[in-house]
């Protein structure tokens, strides 16, 4: 039986100093207050075997004691293997990052990786097949050997049904099978994803074949014409037409381009000729219209002389008018003065008449009054003559004459301007005609008949070039046809290559799919096989779990327990279920029905069932770290009764912080007759170097029957 014999601990967690625990007993009881180092002893055993403390995952593991004098940790655990040989595992660590292991056996020493492999080979061989063998070992160890203090109910409460299934599979021997299924599923799924890529590649290859076929169908067979002669004749004519100086050979790879270029040049030239002809035609039409409708140029010299004479006359008349106007002004001034003198005399006469007396009022002398009166009355009665100044008639005559002259001059100017315009237009046409004739290649003196001949010549040239262009297109077609023949040959080769690639890819896709299908077939069948296997093995240990549960009897009504397995989406699940047979209640979730104490009792039952039902458990040891938590008295007694019966099958290592429970354990797990040995380690007075540990063996009691006779 694989059981613990001793543990030497130094610098590990609570043990700063050096400690040796002789564990060579059937029952080992660790008693002491919380924090005195009991759990560190359990952890030391797990750490020495795995190099890990999984419950500290995500935190600093703190394997090395803060008070380790050397700053390092060392744990040496000796156990007995199946053959009764001793094996010692020594693990050391000088930093939290890594540890070194040395395994000593009667057959040799194994260190480093070889040491870890040796441990797994001895304790949990199937873990060697997995990618994370240490994790698999830790899972098996903490679910079937070492029930950790703070994780008693985790298996029921915290673990998901899938996690529980994984643990059960690991413990029941189906762990690698399930891992194989997961790996195969992962592999198959990624394979399926790459199938899409393979299918795309095959489809692309098919598309390429199809495209080449389409191009081949579009290429016409060569007409079989004498392309050499066509080529030579056409290029000769093209050259003679002055389109190009070169005459390339048909064999050139650029034959098609050269023909195309020559056709382009020919077309450009033909269009130039046509434009010239059309221009000549337009010019001829314009010329003819001008001959018929345009007025001829006139001589304007006589009109200019008349204009000059009239201008002289007008100037002279304007001077005479000016003189006449000045004379008239002077006469008008004289008449005005005369009129004013008359009016003054008349006014004076009127006043004098009013004041005539015997004597002159001024000089007081006598005067002829009557005569004076008559003279005065004559002056008053006289009216000044209304005469026009004599020069005014001359002014008016002269003004009329000037107006006549001005009208004559204006009419003459209009006449002259029109004549000038006609003459200018005639000159411009003459100039334009001469220039356009020169542009058309004719002399300035060319006639419409000359222009007509030119038009006929240009029309003929354009026609000839058009025919040459048509022949050129035929040459281009022939060249293209010959080129297509070459293309056909090339495409035939490409088609053969593409068909080969497509076939290869089709076959690759087919093989890819076949492998994926095979994986799916294996996966489906293996899942069924795995279910059957796990179901069978769960069914095998289920009665054991149920009877251990019944021994503890934690619930007065839900007295039956079972392990329900189910499968969803290819993943297994397992769930502990309880039943109340009296009430006919089956498959109830204990988590919703049980008290904390009852859940603890169920968890311990499950743990013991897995320990006892797993044939190849890493150690035939039950390590319970303070299982008292939340257990009431009755469940506690049930647990102790169960442990007493377990010690016949497993080495027991149980810790407790409760003195009463420690005493109960000592009494109930005492050795009787040939039961072996029960040992108690009492932890107290924790110091920097660790706890004070006292060791006592429980007294062995002889078998004695005093109530019932044998």
């Amino acid at each position, binding site marked *: 039986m694989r059981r613990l014999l001793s543990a030497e601990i130094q610098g590990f967690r609570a043990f700063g100093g050096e400690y040796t625990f002789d564990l060579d007993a059937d029952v080992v009881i660790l008693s002491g207050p919380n924090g005195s180092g009991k759990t560190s002893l359990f952890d030391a055993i797990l750490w020495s075997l795995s190099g890990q403390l999984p419950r500290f995952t995500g935190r600093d593991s703190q394997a090395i004691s803060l008070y380790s004098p050397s700053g390092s940790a060392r744990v040496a655990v000796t156990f007995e293997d199946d053959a009764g040989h001793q094996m010692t595992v020594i693990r050391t660590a000088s930093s939290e990052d890594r540890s070194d292991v040395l395994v000593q056996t009667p057959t040799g020493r194994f260190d480093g990786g070889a040491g870890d492999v040796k441990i797994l080979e001895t304790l949990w061989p*199937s873990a060697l*097949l997995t990618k994370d063998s240490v994790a698999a070992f830790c899972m098996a160890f903490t679910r079937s050997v070492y029930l950790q203090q703070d994780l008693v109910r985790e298996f029921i409460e915290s673990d998901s049904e899938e996690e529980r299934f994984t643990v059960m599979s690991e413990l029941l021997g189906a762990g*690698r*099978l399930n*891992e*194989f299924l997961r*790996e*195969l599923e992962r*592999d*198959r799924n990624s394979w399926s994803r790459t199938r899409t890529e393979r299918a795309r590649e095959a489809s692309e290859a098919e598309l390429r074949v199809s495209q080449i076929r389409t191009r081949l169908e579009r290429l016409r067979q060569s007409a079989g014409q004498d392309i050499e002669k066509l080529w030579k004749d056409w290029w000769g004519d093209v050259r003679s037409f002055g389109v190009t100086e070169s005459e390339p050979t048909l064999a050139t790879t650029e034959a098609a381009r050269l023909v195309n270029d020559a056709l382009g040049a020919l077309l450009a030239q033909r269009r130039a000729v046509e434009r010239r002809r059309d221009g000549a035609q337009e010019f001829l039409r314009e010329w003819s219209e001008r001959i018929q409708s345009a007025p001829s140029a006139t001589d304007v010299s006589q009109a200019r002389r008349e204009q000059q004479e009239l201008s002289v006359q007008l100037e002279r008349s304007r001077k005479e008018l000016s003189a006449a106007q000045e004379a008239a002004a002077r006469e008008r001034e004289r008449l005005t003065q005369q009129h004013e003198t008359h009016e003054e005399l008349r006014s004076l006469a009127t006043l004098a008449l009013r004041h005539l007396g015997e004597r002159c009022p001024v000089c007081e002398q006598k005067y002829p009054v009557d005569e004076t009166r008559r003279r005065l009355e004559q002056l008053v009665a006289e009216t000044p003559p209304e005469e026009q100044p004599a020069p005014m008639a001359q002014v008016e005559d002269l003004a009329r004459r000037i107006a006549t002259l001005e009208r004559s001059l204006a009419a003459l100017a209009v006449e002259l301007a029109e004549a000038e315009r006609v003459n200018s237009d005639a000159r411009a046409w003459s100039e334009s005609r001469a220039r356009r004739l020169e542009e058309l290649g004719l002399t300035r003196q060319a006639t419409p008949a000359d222009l007509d001949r030119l038009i006929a010549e240009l029309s003929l040239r354009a026609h000839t070039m058009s025919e040459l262009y048509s022949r050129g297109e035929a040459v281009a077609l022939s060249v293209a046809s010959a080129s297509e023949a070459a293309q056909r040959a090339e495409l035939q080769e490409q088609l053969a290559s593409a068909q080969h690639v497509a076939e290869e890819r089709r076959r690759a896709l087919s*093989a*890819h799919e*076949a*492998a*994926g299908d*095979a*994986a799916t*077939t*294996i996966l489906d*069948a*293996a899942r069924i*096989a*795995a279910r059957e296997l796990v179901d069978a093995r769960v069914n095998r*240990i289920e*009665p*054991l779990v149920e*009877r*251990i549960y*019944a*021994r*503890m*009897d934690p619930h*007065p009504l839900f*007295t039956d327990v079972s392990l329900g397995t189910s499968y969803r989406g290819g993943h297994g699940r397992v769930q502990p279920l309880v039943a109340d047979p*009296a009430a006919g209640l089956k498959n109830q979730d204990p988590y919703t029905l049980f008290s904390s104490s009852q859940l603890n009792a169920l968890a311990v039952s499950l743990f013991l069932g897995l320990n*006892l*039902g797993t*044939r190849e458990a890493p150690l035939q040891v039950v390590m319970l770290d303070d299982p008292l938590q939340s257990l*009431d008295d*009755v469940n506690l007694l*049930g647990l102790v009764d*169960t442990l*007493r*019966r377990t010690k*016949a*099958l497993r080495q027991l290592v149980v810790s407790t912080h409760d003195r009463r429970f420690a005493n109960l354990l000592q*009494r*109930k797990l*005492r050795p*009787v*007759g040939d039961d072996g040995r029960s040992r108690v380690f009492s932890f107290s007075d924790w110091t920097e170097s660790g706890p004070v540990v006292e060791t006592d063996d429980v007294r062995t*009691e002889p*078998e*004695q*029957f*005093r*109530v*019932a*006779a*044998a």
Partner: protein
Amino acid sequence: MINDGGGALAPAAVLAEAASVLSGASYHVERDAEKILDLPTERAFLAEDKYGVVLVVVYDTWGDLARGWRSAQARAVEVISDRFTRLDRKAWDGYLILLTPALAAEDDATVHEIRYDTSRIRKIVATGEDIRSLSDVERTLLPLLPLAHDTVELEEDASPLDELPERLEEHGVARELVQTAVDAFKEHRPIVQELRRHLELE
């Protein structure tokens, strides 16, 4: 409601089965309880193994049990005290098994009280609700029985992974194909890639 009419099992059968079970589990059984206890032999017996002493009492009715368990407890303590000193650890390892095939009264908390009365001696109670067949008698006595009786002899299992090719062949999957997948898994090679290689070689 008190059902004093008893269950399907006769108390005598329950008593006989309990004696048989304990006897089969290496207990020394003293059926003649009357000479040791002031209890009728047809209703009680004593058993003893190397760890402790057991008094099994079977009552016809739940009422009898409810009324008589304290008296039985006194008798059991008395017998153990007579035969063991306080220094004998066996003196502290007594069990009183109180059985009745009759149903307990509904809403009667007495069963709970007896179960949780851990003074003087450990008590195990079972009524007609627990004992419906003879096998339930053994189930009631399980805390007293060796665990070896419960463990199944687990045969040496072949690795399920190694068995897989043969198992799947029964499901119509080619053995060599599955073997290829298993080998690839063991050697940490891409499984489906190996399957393809295998299929191409076929």
